[in-house]
């Protein structure tokens, strides 16, 4: 699939996102400062502050100088100033990012583990009822939009049964510590995590199952059976391990889906991560914050993809030799 992407592709992708971030406010009709900060922020601005901002963004200089100034600011970690929170965007992001990383990281691990095990078992039972049930379930759930799946879970477990919290990541002012704090976090995490896993486990499962089906027909499986390996060993040690390779490649693509899915799911559960922050920023038209969130999400996806490509080379030595 997409396994031998050169490093340049990632550089180009980052460049595309950065230029989009840079050019959009400046393409808007009227004062770019207005587009960068939004009308509401500008109304409250004093002339001195305005002048300072014009200088900071180099708005009085040509476009190329503005772009360099923008890049230089990014390298210093300066993502701009959030008007709504009245704080630097980077500091606001740091408060929300850990929750999203917790959610998406756990979701990725669970999806991969569950998908691989289900895929191996299903592939080994190809054509039998269990396989058919799993296959149709995966196809059915895969078509669900993640925010609607989240809404359904929220309505069922949160509103109707009342067993899960409706919002947040912690019980506020409960003063919990140690184990009870961990349990509290998990309690709040369960539904958003479940949503992401249910909607996103499908691709992992399908991929593993399909590879299993072809792998089980190969000669080394016959050898393993002939030398008397028990069924379990053949399934996991021989065929399963071999079917793991495409999963590593797919994990990168799936992380992209998980991050963007999390943006929506968090909003449904008011989980205090990047998604909820993005929604608030969209409602208040806090443009520097919107840009910061989307840039961070994109960079996270690109980084994970790139790292997985490095892992892939380690897992599958053929890739190196093929070059």
């Amino acid at each position, binding site marked *: 699939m997409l396994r031998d992407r050169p490093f340049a592709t990632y550089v180009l992708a980052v460049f595309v996102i950065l230029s989009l971030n840079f050019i959009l406010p400046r393409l808007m009709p009227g004062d770019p400062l207005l587009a960068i900060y939004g009308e509401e922020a500008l109304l409250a601005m004093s002339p001195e502050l305005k002048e300072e901002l014009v200088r900071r963004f180099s708005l009085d200089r040509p476009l190329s100088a503005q772009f360099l100034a923008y890049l230089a600011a990014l390298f210093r970690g300066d993502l701009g100033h959030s008007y709504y929170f009245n704080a630097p965007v980077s500091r606001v992001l740091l408060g929300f990012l850990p929750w999203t990383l917790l959610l998406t990281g756990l979701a990725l691990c669970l999806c991969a583990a569950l998908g691989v095990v289900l895929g191996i078992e299903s592939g080994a039972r190809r054509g039998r009822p269990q396989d058919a049930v799993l296959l149709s379930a995966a196809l*059915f759930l895969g078509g669900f939009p993640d925010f609607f799946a989240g809404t359904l879970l929220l309505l069922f477990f949160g509103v109707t049964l009342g067993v899960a919290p409706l919002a947040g990541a912690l019980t506020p002012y409960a003063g919990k510590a140690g184990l009870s704090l961990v349990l509290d976090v998990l309690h709040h995490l369960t539904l958003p995590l479940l949503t992401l896993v249910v909607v996103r486990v499908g691709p992992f499962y399908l991929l593993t199952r399909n590879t299993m089906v072809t792998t089980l027909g190969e000669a080394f499986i016959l050898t393993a059976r002939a030398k008397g390996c028990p069924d379990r060993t053949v399934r996991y040690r021989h065929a399963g391990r071999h079917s793991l390779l495409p999963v590593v490649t797919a994990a990168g693509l799936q992380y992209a889906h998980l991050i963007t899915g999390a943006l*929506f799911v968090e909003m449904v559960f008011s989980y205090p991560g990047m998604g909820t922050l993005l929604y608030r920023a969209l409602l208040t038209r806090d443009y520097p914050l*919107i840009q910061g969130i989307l840039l961070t*999400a994109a960079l996270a996806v690109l980084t994970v993809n790139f790292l997985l490509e490095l892992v892939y080379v380690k897992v599958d030595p053929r890739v190196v030799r093929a070059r």
Partner: protein
Amino acid sequence: MHVDYWAHLKQSNAGRAGLILVCLLVGVAVLAPVLSPWNPGAYTGAIFSPPGREHWLGTNDVGQDVWAQLLFGARTSLAVGCGAALLATLLSALIGGTAGLLGGLYDRFWMRAVDALLVIPPVIPAILVGAYLRPSLAVTVALLAAILWPGEARVVRAQILSLKERAPVAAARTFGAGWGHILVRHLIPELGPVLVAVFVQGVRRAVFLEAGLSFLGIGDPAVVSWGRMMQHALRFTYLDVWKWWLLPPGLALSLTLGAFALLGFALETVFHPRLRR
């Protein structure tokens, strides 16, 4: 390879189910004004009224008929979905097709660009551009098409590369056929079914992205859409209204996505004989 795709499509269960559902949805969207006595934007006089004879699915917080909104939401979804997918398919045929045909530096330039665009999750530029432009329907269509084309161009290019090497083309070439003849008589007819499959997949992704964007509140507030209905209804989960206000648009959206997924799945099996079992 002259296969009757239509007959194959009708033979597969997924294809039939998808076709029926899509026809149903298109019918509902076209007949929306006939099927509901209310205007989706109009105040009907009752707020939060539960489903009844007057309002089949009740009314929302500002007294709009939910059933009417649901019907007109189908129009938005299908119009945006089909429009964006059509535009994206044309773009991808143009770029992917020419890249496959011409090859060389031109091909490498586009494929490098496509690679870079493909690693960016599509939702991110969609939200970013949407937040600035506050797009109307036409702009949404253009925006989604701009996001959808790279993946499709890759499929079209791969198909062109494979078609170029097939026996009929080689035979035509030995008879001295020019590039124009080969293009018109061999490549374009064979590419047609692939473009249909690409289009159907594109509709599904465009409908999904449109719903996602309007769920985040991006887009023209005057346009009725399922995503926007859900965004509004989600604020009132503490009342009972979600049963007739929040669930129907979500189910309608899932049904639409499912219908196009089934159709796409069936088309894929038709076009790749190896997947047929």
